[in-house]
């Protein structure tokens, strides 16, 4: 193979049966168990991410239902305090780290190459690695809990409560190292999204033409690259304090308890935006389809997405307003925490205007996307309230904050995600989801959610603290909690209807066709489900809505039915970062077990360190090194042996 092969001019032609047959053979994952373990197909990995995340969502939901029972009325004792503490810690950790982030990675993994008119993500093996590490990190994080030693210091795990002196046993070590492992998964995933954005957009898709979901995930990925090192460092230092006798957080030996909080929230607050911005992107792309018009204010919404994330790095101290920081820094962080609402407000008005000036079609995805606007508003204004320091000194650590964060995480993540499943299910599986069940699903979830979580604002204003396993009578909280528990079970019933609809529709859903919603973007230009190579010929786009151009009367036309034919092995088209001008042919890797092997080796290392077993840890290090060597060994087929042309 020579360097010129990357710079040849591919023939431009239309799709033919011979071509699609050849591409299918080149791109299809091997059949059977081997293929299942070795696939690097972004669509299979995306579905895996989504399914795994939903398993964690259901697990975390069951945990919550159990402890909601305990809080139904004063002085109930279904659970011991220890059980309660493990459950609420696992619930928070599961929902925030194992569901909310990964489910969005799943959608973006599946959708990005299709939205961008590409054959795969830029780094398919890294994509497989990121999934496997996520799965194994989830197993590590749950391993303590299933044998009765779950982490119990809350998901933000403050020291000294999480230090050895107050929390003996392997639970916190497993939590700490599991989180570092998960951080590796998120980091390699983020790198993959960024490189894909810069290199894999089809010709013509300049940065001002990518769907908003791409902006959301790109922004979140860039943020993760900066935010995750802080929390990984915090957990590493904690593990060292607990097992090697260091004193980073040990106040008695000159360490600092607040250091943990700074490191954790420097990550934690950007993470909150990272797990909502892609979901907001899904609404920005999905809602206009059902309003029969493009999004109002594309550029402003894209800029607001980036602005939110940038400001999001300057607000972490609002989790620490009551820690005795000086007034001047409180004022600064208070102002930043209030002003960050502005780009969100821009988004809300853009979605409202899109509905107002459009022609709404009342499908189930529309219901989820439209209701998101009001849930986002409620979660937004309660966040604005907690941004005001003197008010926050009362609100913080009460159920008002619990209400706020659930309106944010369920309102801005779960509702758009369920809407997105209804929206993209036909593309994933070639079948429509049942609309009638969809209505039942929506209204049960919507009513259950508001019935369950809105009253938490009131119990918070009546002074109910977070994280209490029970409360005395006479505090004024009994009835509010009864309603909350009832609502949470109704909400859970809504989720059950959703799962039932998924299973029914997988088997008996009506055939979807390529573009059942008459949507404008590239993923709807290919078949449902898409072929392994996504697009037989690489499209070239001329606008943000290639499939609507005729009707919108836009000047130039995108070219989708014919384009560069790349069939000499697994090939994809590389383009320039800003204007997306084709400039290279990329050789893409096929099925491989190496990502799985590396993920297993890393997990072994994690377990060795958690058990402080140096032999196991050393074996893990050796296997990690070996797997990386095999991975990076230059291969002619991938062009890794070619001299720079």
């Amino acid at each position, binding site marked *: 193979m020579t360097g010129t092969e990357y710079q040849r001019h591919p023939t431009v032609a239309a799709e033919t049966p011979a071509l699609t047959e050849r591409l299918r053979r080149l791109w299809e994952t091997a059949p059977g168990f081997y293929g299942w373990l070795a696939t690097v197909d972004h669509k299979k990995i995306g579905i895996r991410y989504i399914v795994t995340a939903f398993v964690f969502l259901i697990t975390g939901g069951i945990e919550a239902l159990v402890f909601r029972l305990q809080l139904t009325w004063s002085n109930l004792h279904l659970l011991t305090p220890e059980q309660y503490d493990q459950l609420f810690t696992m619930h928070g950790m599961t929902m925030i780290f194992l569901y909310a982030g990964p489910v969005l990675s799943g959608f973006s993994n599946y959708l990005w190459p299709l939205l961008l008119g590409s054959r795969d993500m830029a780094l398919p093996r890294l994509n497989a690695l990121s999934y496997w590490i996520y799965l194994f990190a989830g197993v590590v994080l749950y391993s303590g809990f299933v044998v009765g030693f779950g982490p119990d210091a809350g998901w933000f795990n403050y020291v000294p409560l999480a230090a050895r002196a107050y929390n003996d046993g392997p639970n916190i070590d497993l939590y700490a190292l599991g989180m570092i492992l998960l951080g590796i998964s998120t980091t390699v995933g983020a790198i993959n999204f960024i490189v894909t954005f810069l290199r894999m957009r089809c010709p013509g898709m300049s940065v001002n033409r990518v769907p908003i979901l791409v902006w959301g995930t790109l922004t979140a990925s860039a943020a993760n690259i900066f935010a995750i090192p802080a929390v990984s460092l915090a957990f590493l230092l904690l593990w060292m304090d607990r097992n090697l006798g260091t004193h980073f957080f040990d106040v008695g030996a000159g360490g600092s*308890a*607040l250091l943990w909080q700074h490191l954790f929230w420097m990550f934690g607050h950007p993470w909150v935006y990272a797990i909502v911005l892609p979901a907001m992107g899904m609404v920005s792309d999905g809602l206009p389809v059902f309003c029969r018009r493009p999004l109002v204010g594309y550029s402003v919404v894209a800029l607001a997405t980036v602005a939110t994330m940038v400001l999001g790095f300057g607000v972490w101290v609002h989790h620490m307003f009551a820690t005795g920081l000086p007034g001047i820094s409180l004022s600064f962080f208070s102002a930043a925490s209030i002003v960050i609402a502005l780009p969100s407000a821009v988004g809300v008005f*853009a979605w409202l205007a899109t509905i107002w*000036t459009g022609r709404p079609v009342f499908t189930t995805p529309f219901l989820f996307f439209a209701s998101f606007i009001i849930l986002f508003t409620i979660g937004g204004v309660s966040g604005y309230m907690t941004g005001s320091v003197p008010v926050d*000194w009362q609100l*913080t*650590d009460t159920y008002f904050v619990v209400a706020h964060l659930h309106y944010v995480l369920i309102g801005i993540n779960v509702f758009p995600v369920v809407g997105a499943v209804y929206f993209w299910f036909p593309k994933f599986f070639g079948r429509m989801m049942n609309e009638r069940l969809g209505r039942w699903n929506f209204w049960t979830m919507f009513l259950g959610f508001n019935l369950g979580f809105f009253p938490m604002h009131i119990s918070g204003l009546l002074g109910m603290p977070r994280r209490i396993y029970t409360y005395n009578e006479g505090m004024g909280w009994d009835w509010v909690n009864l309603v909350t528990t009832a609502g949470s079970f109704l909400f859970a019933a809504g989720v059950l209807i959703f799962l039932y609809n998924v299973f029914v529709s997988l088997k008996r859903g009506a055939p979807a066709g390529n573009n059942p919603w008459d949507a404008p973007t590239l993923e709807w230009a290919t078949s449902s489900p898409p072929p392994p190579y996504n697009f037989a010929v690489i499209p070239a786009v001329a606008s943000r809505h290639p499939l609507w151009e005729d009707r919108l009367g836009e000047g130039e036309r995108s070219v989708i039915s014919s384009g560069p034919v790349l069939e000499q092995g697994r090939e994809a088209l590389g383009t320039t970062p800003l204007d997306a001008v084709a400039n290279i042919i990329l050789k893409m890797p096929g099925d491989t077990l190496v990502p799985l092997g590396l993920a297993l080796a890393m997990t072994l290392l994690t377990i060795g360190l958690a058990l402080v077993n140096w032999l196991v840890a050393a074996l893990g290090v050796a296997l990690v090194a070996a797997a990386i060597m095999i991975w990076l060994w230059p291969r002619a087929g991938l062009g890794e042996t070619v001299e720079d042309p």
Partner: protein
Amino acid sequence: MDIMKVRANLTAVLLGLSVITAGAAPLQYLSGASDKAAPVVALTWGVLLVSVVVIFLIGLLLVAAIWRRRPAAVESTALEKEEGGQNWLWIGASLSALALLVTVVWTVKVLADIQAPSDRPAVTIEVTGRQWWWQVRYIGDGSAQGFATANEIHVPVGRPVRLRLVGGDVIHSFWVPQLAGKMDAIPGQINETWIEAAAPGTYTGQCTEYCGVEHSRMQLRVVAQSPGDFRTWWAHQLAAPGFAADRKFIQHCSGCHTVRGTEANGTLGPDLSHLMQRRTLASGAFPNDAAILASWIADPQALKPGNRMPVVALSPDDRARIVAWLRTLT
């Protein structure tokens, strides 16, 4: 519309709700009982009203946008053009920016107003959060000798009181919502804050930073008294008990507990001097009566599982003697 009136009505509605549900809500903070709380209560209602108005406006716009009448479409596949709707963004962003800026200014103003009391503090109290109770030390000065107590803080009405908060083991958070917002008690640092009660009464407080298994039952009480009563109470705290220390108490309990004026001087557990002046046992978990005191001593783990007081093996007679003596510590 008169904002104060609206506020009063809304307070009535929300408090009314709590009254209907279970009597009172001692930890609510929609009304306050001190000059420090007042500007914060006003700000809280201010941002709450802004929030409610925003939710209603957006809700109305959403419903109107969905169901407003539209001219019939020319054909079913017709699309609306991309232009249009931009005015929504500018108007919406401008109004939001205005509300947000006003909030920032108001916030900084209130923050400055409550930073320090207008008057010199009448007394300085060091409060140490411990798993799962509050150690309280009154710092003496030239005119009065200091002393220690636990879980109940007496203060003079109408005078600012300086609090020095310390974390004795893990992080706790001091919160008496009727008097002031939260301030954390963190190991290795001293956080200063202040409170001032406008009227005599008992104000409930609660630890609000999750601190381990009995975080839920780590309450405290602030008792506000007239300055005269407060001085009397202080003097009484310094007095020795009227009866000689029980031998069994010294033998079994003095390793952890102090009773001033006796040989008992342990510091691991709460100071028990004048225990019978306190309304509750185990940091607000139970009312302070003889039966509960007896069962607490018999098996503290049954009443408040996980707390740091071990089960001490005592014969029933010895236990009765100890309870009887503790009951004399008025």
